[in-house]
């Protein structure tokens, strides 16, 4: 029974949202007076709104249901029998979700109409569907759907009055299939690896892999291998410093790389003490088109380029901005902004903010607003755009930065291209051709609206004419080497996953984080660990299909077809199991060998994480952070101790966390160890007992005590 003040609500519309913030906004938008009554049942909030009829809005907490094996407590594999169960039954620390489900279930009993108002994408559709089916006694067939891309009052009201008559069952089927296929791959392969390592070492460590994780780790391993096996080759560059009107400019030899020293020297010798003649001046004007509206991938890429935010961090901030109705739904792959979003209205609202006022009104003064758009579209949502709403509460620094970036991008896409002029001056020095290049911005165009995130370029060259002679100051030959391929970072890895069409915009950032958590990769400039290599080698050797991009892509294609109603979920699951069966059998047969390889790699990786430096005493062993089994105390010791060759050790503070800091001591240049103690500022410890910084500190303490 539901009370609203002294009244008992016997019939009402129940709206289910994905998160509490969304529930508050929807209730406030739908209430005729904008006043929302918050109720709490067993710690679960829900909101009452009145608009002619009574409306109850209750939030979920993301997914409340998940896929699990039918046999509870089973830790062996293979597992092919599964069902959808409440998360609180199978996940540690999820017991409050049980209360949440009970409250939603209770509220649904007297509802005469149910509406799914979860985010309109694959994940949101699965969340809403599973709650309606399992917690609301199978009411998914009659439920209606709200579809919106922002949480603004206008859009929420509109989506309520224009409800979709049913859930999008094709989208739901595709979502369910994705979860189930990912679970089948993940649980079976991860258990195979984990159990193999556990049986060998008698120690537990979670080793996971999956349908998307495997191929992602594979192309990281391929890149890492290229870097580790790289052989640099020498080449030479030649530049001429020329003088024009007392200013010195650099012109580069026409060949970027001269392959032999003899040839390079010959060129330098032939140019010495010669004058230069201008052979040609080539000027080009280029249009630099405005950037495209943000989809999630490009937003994550740009946030990394500018602020060094990881893709996961950017997604979390964007999600918060969306829930505060400041931007549209961020999990989109669209690069299009349809006119229906109301460009003028948004710009008018942005014009109320002092920072954006002049540019917003400059745009509004134009006769037409036509945004630059890309090719990609998303059936559910447009590209990311600001709603124009003002923040209701203080934003954190990172939220402010991301919001500003989205606003500036939104404005820039309506502006004309920038005009750049490039100049190439071809200089002849005794028959050898050199190029002097420059560029300047003739017209800023959209760059002005996107500042400071992109700046006009300027690299000026002198005004010269064909046939003119100029003097040569110096000819410089530099020896260089080719460089190894660059390491992936979280942003470039995400782009690669997008390019290869593996994972979804919602899951890619999380998969990168999982690879980190599992110790398969480390650092921001991603390095693959020994464990990562071993996992990939094992999978390549015993089940190469599982790490193949082709298989993953085919599955993604089939899931798209489910979404389009052209493929059956049941068939995809059946085929997945048929692929997995022989793979699992093979892994079981080779369990011992696999276990040995993975355990050894795990030990080596964990040791490497604790390496501080090469031992300064024996110069062969490595100084590692260790813990004495006898005393339980932490210290730094040399790995050569185990060979009986070196007893070097240094004490460490026993509290807090200690890790290699990545910096060296200013006084003695030894690597330092960073210590984090709760409640105190982290500090870099130089553990060298002979370091002069210790004398300085001792003297300082003595002076203070006097």
């Amino acid at each position, binding site marked *: 029974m539901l009370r609203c003040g002294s009244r008992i609500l016997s019939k009402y519309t129940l709206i289910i949202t994905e998160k509490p913030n969304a529930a508050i906004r929807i209730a406030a938008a739908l209430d005729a007076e904008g006043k929302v009554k918050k109720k709490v049942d067993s710690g679960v909030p829900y909101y009452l709104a009145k608009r002619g009829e009574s409306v109850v809005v209750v939030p979920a907490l993301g997914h409340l249901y998940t896929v699990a094996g039918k046999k509870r407590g089973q830790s062996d594999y293979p597992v092919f029998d599964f069902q959808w169960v409440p998360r609180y039954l199978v996940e540690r620390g999820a017991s409050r979700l049980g209360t949440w489900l009970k409250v939603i279930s209770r509220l649904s009993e007297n509802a005469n109409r149910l509406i799914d108002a979860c985010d309109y994408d694959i994940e949101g559709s699965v969340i809403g569907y599973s709650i309606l089916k399992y917690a609301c006694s199978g009411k998914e067939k009659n439920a209606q759907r709200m579809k919106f891309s922002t949480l603004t009052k206008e859009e929420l009201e509109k989506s309520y009055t224009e409800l979709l008559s049913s859930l999008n069952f094709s989208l739901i089927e595709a979502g369910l299939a994705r979860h189930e296929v990912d679970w089948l791959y993940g649980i079976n392969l991860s258990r195979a690896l984990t159990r193999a390592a556990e049986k060998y070492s008698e120690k537990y460590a979670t080793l996971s892999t999956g349908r998307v994780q495997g191929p992602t780790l594979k192309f990281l391993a391929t890149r890492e*291998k290229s*870097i*580790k*096996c*790289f*052989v*640099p*080759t*020498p*080449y030479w560059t030649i530049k001429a410093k020329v003088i024009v009107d007392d200013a010195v400019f650099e012109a580069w030899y026409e060949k970027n790389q001269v*392959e*032999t*020293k*003899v040839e390079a020297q010959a060129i330098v010798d032939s140019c010495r003490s010669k004058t230069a003649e201008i052979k040609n001046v080539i000027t080009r004007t280029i249009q630099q088109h405005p950037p495209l509206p943000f989809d999630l991938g490009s937003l994550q890429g740009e946030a990394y380029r500018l602020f060094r935010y990881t893709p996961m961090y950017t997604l979390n901030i964007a999600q918060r901005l969306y829930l505060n109705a400041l931007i549209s739904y961020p999990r989109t792959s669209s690069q299009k902004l349809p006119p229906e979003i109301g460009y003028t209205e948004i710009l008018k609202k942005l014009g109320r903010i002092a920072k954006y006022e002049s540019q917003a009104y400059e745009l509004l003064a134009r006769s037409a607003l036509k945004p630059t758009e890309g090719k990609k579209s998303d059936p559910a949502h447009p590209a990311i755009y600001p709603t124009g709403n003002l923040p209701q509460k203080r934003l954190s620094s990172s939220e402010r930065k991301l919001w500003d970036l989205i606003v500036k991008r939104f404005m820039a896409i309506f502006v004309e291209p920038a005009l750049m002029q490039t100049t190439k001056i071809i200089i002849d020095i005794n028959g050898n051709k050199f190029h002097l290049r420059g560029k300047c911005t003739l017209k800023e165009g959209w760059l002005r609206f996107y500042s400071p995130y992109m700046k006009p370029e300027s690299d000026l060259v002198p005004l010269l004419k064909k046939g003119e002679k100029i003097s040569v100051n110096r000819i410089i030959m530099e020896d260089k*080497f*080719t*460089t*190894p391929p660059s390491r992936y970072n979280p942003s470039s890895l995400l782009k690669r996953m997008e390019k290869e069409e593996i994972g979804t915009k919602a899951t890619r950032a999380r998969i990168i984080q999982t690879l980190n958590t599992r110790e398969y990769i480390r650092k921001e400039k991603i390095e693959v660990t020994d464990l990562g*290599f071993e996992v990939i*080698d094992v999978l390549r050797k015993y089940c190469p299909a599982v790490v193949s991009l082709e298989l993953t892509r085919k599955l993604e294609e089939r899931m798209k077809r489910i979404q389009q109603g052209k493929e059956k979920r049941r068939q995809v699951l059946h085929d997945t199991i048929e692929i997995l069966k022989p793979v699992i059998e093979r892994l079981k047969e080779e369990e011992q060998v696999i276990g040995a390889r993975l355990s*050894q790699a795990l030990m080596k990786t964990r040791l490497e994480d604790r390496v501080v430096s090469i031992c300064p005493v024996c110069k062969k062993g490595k100084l590692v952070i260790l813990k004495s089994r006898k005393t339980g105390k932490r210290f730094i010791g040399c790995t050569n101790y185990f060979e009986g060759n070196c007893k070097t050790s240094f004490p460490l503070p026993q509290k807090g966390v200690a890790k290699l800091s990545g910096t060296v001591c200013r006084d003695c240049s030894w690597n330092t160890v960073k210590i984090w103690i709760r409640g105190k500022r982290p500090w870099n410890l130089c553990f060298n007992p002979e370091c002069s910084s210790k004398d300085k500190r001792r003297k300082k303490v003595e002076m203070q005590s006097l």
Partner: protein
Amino acid sequence: MKCKVCDREIVEDDFCSMHLKAFKNLVERYDCWRKALRISWKEYLSEIRHNPLTGECTKEVASYLIENEEKRNGEEI
């Protein structure tokens, strides 16, 4: 059987897959170096070993080849 440079399983020529690739790259690139600088194989290995851009595994293979060449020369003497 273990790789001559590390503890991993052998794939070919007594090298694991990583060190095999490094070895093959070393052999392949020597021609470039020879044309560029007119240096011997031994000098090339030494340059590679000290170059900061060289991959970790390549350095290990170069060191192994140098040490084994020295051992072989020592035995001959």
